């Protein structure tokens, strides 16, 4: 790897990290604003113009709030919990292609941090670790509500990971690759996977809600039952990190969903646009930049959807959630795999004779 690329990667990773932090920060603001708007209120509007400094106020407050470690808590694990949650959440955005290649001078830059050929597995692996943050934190608090939250989080995440993985397999069968970049590239123009995988997408979407602990699957922290669930005993920035991690997870999952099903940075008529420019480099760059914007638009749309759903639906009960996961989603996902396999076979039969 030559040094230009190395430096580029370093900067890129920092930028992506910064963006995910920024988006997570402002997600809290948008969550509050969207909730307010849905509920006929105006939401925060006193901290800065339209309340735009609200996240900063929250962060400033949280930073300077007293650190509190309960007397009977396991100190080390208590501190480790939010750290794991945050670290894991921040790691997962590394393999997401936020855009196509950008050509500057002689070199072309891929707008992806690491293009590993098992990108989707990487995300899975990292996301599956996220639950440790909640479990360890909840357990270490030595509070029964926290413990219940932790246990709920663990069983929920494991159960829904299965259905999520199964629903993904259909996409992988279509794309024939585990690399997110390859999957993104295959969906040029309007050729998005959602047209072939509506059922798979639905399953993935539901599982995404469950994996990020959002309503209607916010059992681990359900306020009415468990007060704050696993983060009941956390104050100060440790709480902030949990909240942050949740929003980063939403961001990542939205990005993954746009990449897998909604064509990532691809948008309709992009080829026409590319060809409209005489200079291929310029055309490529314009399309790439629009693509990045499109990608983020899709991500924001998903984030909005997450919040919209949260402020509409009641939540499940623990056993119903399990039933939904194991009895409905997993069989459906397997069915989806079979259908997709059959479809591919049929397609090949008719095209290749």
């Amino acid at each position, binding site marked *: 790897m030559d040094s230009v690329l190395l430096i580029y990667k370093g900067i890129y990773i920092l930028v992506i990290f910064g963006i995910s932090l920024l988006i997570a920060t402002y997600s809290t603001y948008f969550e509050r604003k969207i909730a307010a708007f849905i509920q006929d*209120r*105006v939401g*925060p509007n*006193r901290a800065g113009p339209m309340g735009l400094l609200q996240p900063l106020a*929250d962060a400033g407050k949280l930073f300077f709030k007293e650190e509190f470690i309960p007397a009977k808590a396991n100190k080390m694990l208590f501190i480790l919990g939010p750290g794991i949650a945050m670290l894991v959440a921040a790691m997962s955005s590394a393999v997401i292609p936020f855009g196509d290649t950008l050509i500057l001078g002689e070199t072309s830059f891929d707008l992806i941090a690491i293009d590993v050929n098992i990108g989707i597995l990487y995300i899975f692996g990292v996301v599956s670790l996220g639950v440790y943050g909640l479990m360890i934190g909840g357990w270490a608090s030595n509070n029964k509500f926290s413990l219940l939250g932790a246990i709920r989080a663990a069983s929920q995440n494991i159960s829904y990971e299965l259905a999520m993985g199964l629903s993904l397999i259909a996409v992988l069968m279509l794309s024939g690759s585990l690399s997110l970049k390859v999957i993104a590239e295959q969906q040029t123009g309007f050729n998005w996977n959602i047209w072939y995988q509506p059922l798979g997408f639905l399953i993935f979407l539901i599982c995404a809600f469950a994996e990020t602990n959002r309503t209607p699957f916010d059992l681990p922290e359900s306020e009415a039952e468990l007060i704050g669930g696993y983060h009941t005993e956390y*104050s100060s920035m440790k709480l902030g990190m949990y909240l942050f991690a949740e929003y980063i997870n939403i961001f990542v999952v939205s990005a993954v969903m746009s990449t897998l099903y909604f064509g990532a940075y691809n948008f309709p008529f992009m080829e026409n646009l590319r060809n409209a420019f005489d200079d291929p480099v310029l055309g490529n760059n314009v399309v790439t930049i629009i693509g990045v914007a499109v990608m983020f638009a899709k991500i924001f749309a998903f984030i909005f959807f997450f919040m919209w759903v949260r402020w509409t639906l009641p939540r499940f009960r623990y056993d119903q959630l399990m039933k939904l996961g194991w009895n409905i989603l997993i069989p459906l996902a397997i069915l989806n795999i079979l259908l997709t396999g059959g479809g591919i076979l049929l397609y090949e039969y008719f095209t290749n004779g």
Partner: protein
Amino acid sequence: MSDLNKDINMAEAPEGHSGAGFFATSFEKVIGLARANSLWPLPFATSCCGIEFMATMGATYDISRFGSERPSFSPRQADILLVMGTIAKKMGPVVKQVYEQMAEPRWVVAVGACATSGGIFDSYSVLQGIDRVVPVDVYVPGCPPRPEQILDGLMRVQDLAKNESLRRRNSPEYQALLASYNIK
């Protein structure tokens, strides 16, 4: 959307020395401001005033404008303890316990006649004001107060938060205050 941009007193920028690209202010002020605009309440709602607090959270009054719409039922995460409603003697120790569990900085608002002074319930079972159990920062009169008055109380706490030293907790006066309530 147009009705959102009406005249609203936003949190004022702290006074500082502004020059070309230069804005310095006391760090404490900034944090005070941050705290003031992100006061998460712990609604300790036992009776009628709690119902009015619901109205305060509702669309018409919307406590979220002050950044306080996230009720933290876990005392660790809350900044202000809003005691709303009658506190009986049986409940007194619980209030104290909740207060002890709160992380600094913490403020207490006694909302309504019962919490502030017992109100009409001058009876053998009712605590005549929660300031017998925990130190109270702001009193809100009314039985129950209108949501406007609850918001008033919140803004009073904001004023307190803005002008408070970061090290209030360590000050001897504060320690003495806590000691007088027998809070460790």
